[in-house]
């Protein structure tokens, strides 16, 4: 069964959405976080893809591009024991 991301050739009557959008600051920061982790060889692009593809179909469809990256980076950082879920959640509370 094809992964949720493997959409080439999937039949649809929907027109292609060609609209662009300005990136929000948090999206630029997410991109920068990925690049910083990649520079230090803590995360590979293929790992990021693997995590994106492992999102549930519902998450994959409903999350935006950088929301998927954000979810995948959290999964990778905890998978690699660089951060714990508790540390991330606490930081979110502290920043909120």
């Amino acid at each position, binding site marked *: 069964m*094809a992964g949720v991301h493997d959409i080439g*050739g999937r039949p649809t009557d929907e027109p292609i959405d060609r609209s662009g959008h300005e990136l929000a600051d948090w999206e630029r920061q997410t991109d920068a976080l990925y690049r910083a982790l990649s520079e230090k060889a803590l995360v590979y692009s293929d790992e990021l*893809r*693997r995590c994106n593809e492992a999102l549930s179909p519902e998450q994959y469809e409903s999350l935006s591009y950088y929301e998927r990256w954000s979810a995948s980076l959290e999964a990778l950082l905890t998978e690699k024991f660089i951060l714990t879920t508790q540390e991330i959640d606490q930081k979110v509370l502290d920043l909120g």
Partner: protein
Amino acid sequence: MSDATARYAPGDRVRVLTDAPTTHHRTPGYAKGRTARITVVCGAFPDPEKRAYGSSGLPRVCLYRVEFDQSEVWDGYRGSPQDKVYVDVYEHWLEPA
């Protein structure tokens, strides 16, 4: 397959395997099982299927740009018979056709 010497050369006819692993792979579903022609030997790269799980991905694997007829890939294709689609496929996803 374990070394970086290219098994295929431009012009070779190949078929994409129909494997459907649950693990990360780059070969798109629409290309699987279809027959193509090698156009470019792109070079050898760390295996992304292994990199996806934190491995170095070594030894490198050969990547090829393969050319499909659109009519080969899409059932009932109504465009020109000259239309092509190009996909980059790793060597272990190919067999001689």
